């Protein structure tokens, strides 16, 4: 119950102001199609550099929470999911809006998001200290394998092609080695003076997540937003609350499914929302109503995608494995303050850890309160032409990457990586494993070197890195995640070729 001692920190004026700014800004950004939660959080990181660690994380956490929920606004009113996590919400949410129940769909969406989100953060509160203590027993070989797990799980599960996902992870691991070697002081892959200090993580995050979206918006050409916003009617909040709790089955399925999926690294909110929607339909006596504007569909999808937010941070805060691309960006936010997740975080910076986690709990409630009132405004923002969005994001990316170290080199790195990522994405490569490789690379290398020294003084590399129950268990996870994804890919290919032959 240590977290209770730090509740007061969230209500300090500056912290609470940042929580409000992050929540309201996140809701508006989340409602804007084309601006993903990951990109929003990445663009915010430069602003946290000048804040205290806890305050910076409050801003990032609030933005993460509310961008996921804000995506429901455009999903319901415009039929355009603000983020992949809101795809399932469009199925019933937009139909409800077309039937004149837009306000009710929004109310249910924010209320269900808050219930799911609070449950997810409570899970984070109670699981994190237990796992962090367990992580104390880990030696360098285990930490090395954990870093590799982080890259391979995201690489294999988050990518359309397992090989390209793993290759993206390798590119990230290589990029992490650029610069001077920490132990020998040797130059590695420094082919431009700007790379002497290695690749700045914040500049890289901004480039990898923001620039491909800017170029995608350019690629669409002179295109009007061309979306019709459905006007929302007045609707009683009390009735919405009653309706929410009359669908406890959908709410429970969404909340539990989202929380469990959130705990698995690499499986994002999109999967959580779709699985919860599908399961709710299967267990519902009114399953034929799903897809026709049924409120259970909205409740299941939205409770699930916000329930996954808290648990997705459990592997990050305890084992340094970001559960999602956005969690990887949050890890970057921790590292720029010199804070490492795991035992260091909870033993040496408990105020930072618990203030951040508590702020996410309060943030869920604020998100629900403000979401209900600014949904209309957020939907208007979603109509802003992409030309304006692209120019704004480009400007923010340049200023943001420069502001971290006042270095033009960081701006060049940001732009180069961003342009490269745009073209790689066109050919099935993915930014998430590349970012994971870049962030986890130094952790993997430091523990590999430390482990090698221990191994050379003891039983040798093979026995040290491949022996022992924990090493075998961790290697099994790496193999299983790759094997599972390869199996799924082959099954999908067989199904497609059979379908192709049949047609």
């Amino acid at each position, binding site marked *: 119950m240590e977290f209770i001692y730090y509740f007061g920190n969230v209500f300090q004026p500056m912290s609470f102001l940042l929580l409000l700014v992050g929540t309201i800004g996140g809701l508006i950004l989340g409602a804007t199609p084309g601006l993903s939660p990951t990109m929003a959080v990445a663009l915010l990181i430069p602003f946290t550099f000048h804040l205290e660690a806890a305050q910076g994380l409050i801003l990032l956490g609030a933005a993460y929470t509310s961008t996921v929920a804000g995506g429901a606004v455009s999903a319901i009113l415009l039929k355009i999911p603000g983020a992949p996590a809101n795809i399932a919400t469009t199925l019933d949410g937009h139909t409800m809006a077309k039937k004149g129940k837009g306000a009710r769909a929004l109310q249910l969406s924010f209320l269900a998001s808050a219930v799911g989100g609070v449950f997810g953060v409570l899970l984070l509160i109670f699981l994190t200290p237990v796992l962090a203590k367990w992580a104390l027993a880990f030696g360098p070989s285990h930490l090395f394998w954990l870093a590799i797990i982080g890259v391979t799980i995201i690489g294999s599960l988050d990518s359309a092609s397992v090989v*390209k996902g793993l290759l993206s992870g390798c*590119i990230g691991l290589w990029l992490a080695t650029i610069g001077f070697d920490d132990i020998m002081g040797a130059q590695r892959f420094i082919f431009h003076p700007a790379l002497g200090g290695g690749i700045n993580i914040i500049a890289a995050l901004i480039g990898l997540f923001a620039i491909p979206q*800017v170029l995608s918006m350019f690629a669409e050409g002179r295109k009007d937003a061309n979306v019709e916003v459905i006007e929302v009617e007045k609707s009683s909040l009390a009735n919405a609350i009653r309706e929410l709790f009359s669908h406890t089955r959908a709410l429970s399925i969404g909340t539990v499914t989202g929380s469990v999926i959130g705990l698995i690294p690499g499986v994002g909110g999109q999967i959580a929302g779709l699985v919860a929607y599908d399961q709710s339909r299967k267990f519902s006596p009114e399953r034929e109503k799903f897809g026709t504007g049924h409120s259970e569909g909205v409740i299941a999808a939205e409770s699930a995608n916000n329930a996954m937010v808290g648990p997705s941070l459990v592997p990050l805060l305890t084992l340094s494995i970001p559960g999602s691309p956005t969690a990887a960006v949050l890890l970057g936010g921790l590292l720029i303050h010199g804070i490492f997740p795991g035992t260091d975080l909870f033993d040496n910076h408990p105020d930072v850890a618990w203030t951040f986690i508590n702020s996410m709990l309060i943030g869920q409630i604020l998100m629900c309160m403000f979401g209900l009132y600014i949904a209309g405004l957020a939907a208007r923002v979603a109509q802003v*032409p992409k030309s304006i969005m692209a120019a704004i994001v480009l400007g923010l990316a340049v200023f943001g990457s420069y502001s971290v170290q006042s270095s*033009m080199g960081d701006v060049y790195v940001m*732009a180069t990586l961003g342009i490269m990522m745009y*073209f790689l994405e066109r*050919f099935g490569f993915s930014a998430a494993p590349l970012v994971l490789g870049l962030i986890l690379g130094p952790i993997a290398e430091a523990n590999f070197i430390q482990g090698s020294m221990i191994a050379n003084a003891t039983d040798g590399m093979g026995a040290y890195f491949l022996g022992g129950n924990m090493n075998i268990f961790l290697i099994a996870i790496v193999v299983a995640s790759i094997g599972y994804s390869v199996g799924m890919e082959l099954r999908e290919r067989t199904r497609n070729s059979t379908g192709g032959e049949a047609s």
Partner: protein
Amino acid sequence: MNLNRVQHSVSSGMVALIGLWVCWVSFTQQPSEAFLFPRMISTVFVLLALWTFAKAVLGWSKVGTGIYAKHFTNMLPGLLIALIYVFWAAKGLGFYTSTSMAFFILLSLYDPASHTEIRTWVKRLIITAVFMVVMYGLFAKLLKVYTPREIFF
């Protein structure tokens, strides 16, 4: 060989070349202790890259849409402006001057609104001015970041 297959082959071939270069540097540079970890990852990198390249050449690459000519021609002016802005104008002209210019040009290039009405040009100028005021407030005043300032501002 269709265009999509050529595109996949070229892109994965470039990744494979980078992988081979990384591998060569890792195994030839000294001190070897500093390149122990790069050697390990570059080996996996090259194997995966060559596998991807072979799949692309054989036409087995199915993931990724490739680049459509229309998308590329739409993107090209914006990309060129962005490159000039980032790699030359930001330092050469100063951040605020170059950002104002790049923002206004990009807005004008991609804005779906009419290019023949004065009203729409005035609107674009106002949006640019508002954006620059916000950027100045955020970075110069709030974060106290001293960005390069060359001509004008």
